[in-house]
């Protein structure tokens, strides 16, 4: 009996806090999502219908999915490429440490510190436009952060900040692949592409899941860059779920917020549950 209690004793401090600050209030949010603004009348699915038919919600949800679908593969591919190249370099070799330190450095730099620099590049009189004017001979005066190109700009700041962290994750995964596998493959005459395809990538499966999860966690922090660069009302191409919630919060639109919070949570829960069941089936 005592033995059974021990894990729960270890869990108690964390679990009680999570329950008080997230669990119980979330149940309250679910309850409120079915009520009117005063919390007096049961409305059924009305709030959910209102959110679902809300154009801003559709725009924000679509953009968020678009951002996740583009940025996470891009981030994972770029960081994996750099990790593969870096792991090919001799560990003690010149520059290895400098490169690693440099790549992770942006993670420590607050978004607020970088905004001015991004503006130097992106503003109408900025470096990007000067460069483009220089090579095309025409006058470029796009305000990149507010234009239809805001999306690639956001992708750029996201990659700049998070590539290094993902690269270290990949490097750690690469470090666990036994060298004998490659030796055996080389004996069999496998080229470097075949080694990548049949050894490296399959062996990185575990790291792939972890890097994916942590990249999703980081992807929502891009709101900070978006907010600092383009304010609360950015170009419609980068108007995302966080912007929408921020507006509803300002308007104290509790009904919409609660229903949307439940919907977004469900949107995360569903793929996770599917993945979980799928992996359980495999094990």
């Amino acid at each position, binding site marked *: 009996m005592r033995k059974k209690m021990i894990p729960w004793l270890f869990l108690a401090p964390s679990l009680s806090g999570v329950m008080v600050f997230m669990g119980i209030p979330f149940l309250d949010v679910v309850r409120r999502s079915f009520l009117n603004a005063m919390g007096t009348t049961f409305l059924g699915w009305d709030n959910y219908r209102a959110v679902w038919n809300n154009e801003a919600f559709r725009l924000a949800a679509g953009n968020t999915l678009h951002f996740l679908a583009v940025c996470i593969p891009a981030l994972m591919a770029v960081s994996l490429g750099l990790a593969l190249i870096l792991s090919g370099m001799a560990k003690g070799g010149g520059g290895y440490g400098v490169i690693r330190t440099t790549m992770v450095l942006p*993670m420590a730099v607050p978004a607020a510190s970088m905004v001015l620099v991004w503006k130097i590049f992106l503003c109408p009189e900025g470096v990007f436009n000067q460069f483009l004017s220089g090579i095309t001979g025409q006058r470029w005066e796009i305000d990149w952060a507010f234009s239809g190109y805001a999306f690639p700009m956001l992708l750029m700041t996201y990659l700049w900040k998070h590539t290094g962290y993902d690269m270290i994750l990949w490097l750690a995964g690469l470090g666990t692949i036994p060298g004998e596998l490659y030796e055996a493959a080389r004996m069999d005459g496998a080229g470097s592409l075949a080694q990548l395809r049949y050894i490296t990538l399959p062996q990185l499966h575990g790291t792939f899941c972890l890097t994916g999860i942590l990249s999703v966690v980081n992807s929502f922090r891009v709101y900070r860059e978006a907010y600092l660069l383009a304010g609360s009302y950015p170009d419609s191409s980068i108007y995302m779920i966080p912007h929408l919630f921020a507006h509803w919060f300002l308007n104290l639109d509790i009904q919409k917020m609660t229903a949307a919070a439940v919907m977004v949570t469900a949107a995360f829960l569903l793929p996770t549950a599917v993945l979980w069941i799928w992996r359980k089936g495999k094990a």
Partner: protein
Amino acid sequence: MKKRHVFHTILLYGACFLIWVPLLIMGAGALMPEDELYWRYLSPLGLGRDRVRAALIPSYPSGDSLGELLIRSPGFFVMFWNACIQVIPMAAGQFLAAAPAAWAFARFRFPGKRLLFGIYVILMILPFQVTQVSNYLVLDGMGILNSHWSLILPGIWSTLPVFIMTKSFETIPDALVEAAYLDGAGEFYTFFHVGLPLGYPGIATALMLGFLDGWNALEQPVTYLKDKNLWPIALYLPDIAKDKASVAFAAALITCLLPVLIYLNCQEELEQGVAASGVKQ
């Protein structure tokens, strides 16, 4: 083979170059006198429209804007200390709450473990704005809105540190833990004398990431703190007044100084900690 090596080296240093250039531009801006800043960066500072003349090194290096910021801007100091008051107890609390929980997830079997861990992962992924409604209701109920506590308390229960520490504790060889039990060590003794020392890189990593995230936080203070006297340093730049624009670069530099120093000091732990979290599934 040789050619490819050269190409790879160029690629890696190219990536480093892309990281260094923006940082150098920021650092150079911090060391420029006021008139040079206005000449180069009128548009980015939002003071007018003129061609940007970006520079990696100031033409007339000067400590004026740093001095102005550090000596004649008491508001900046207040915000610096606010950030420390909010972030350091938060990280300490994360350690106290997350380390034992992570130990439970990593070393024990108990009913509901996988489900509970799944819930922790979901909570870790959900963006702040989605949990903000729930959080706001609790903080309001406790009457601690508009105080440092409204940032510290919810921050402590972030589940990201639990996740990272769990991954790190999982890499401790079972044999070591069992040896401790065989020697008659109790559960808590084992946690303190085997778990904490061996899981140290993961703990340091989790706390460092927690610190960085707290130091960068914009959404939480803007939402929970009405009183601008409580605002942390990350909000100094977004809220900077036009007549203080000349110290903006200096403020950017000082704002990132502490997190960067912490990163450079904890780099080894970070790499080991990340490595631990990346290895075992």
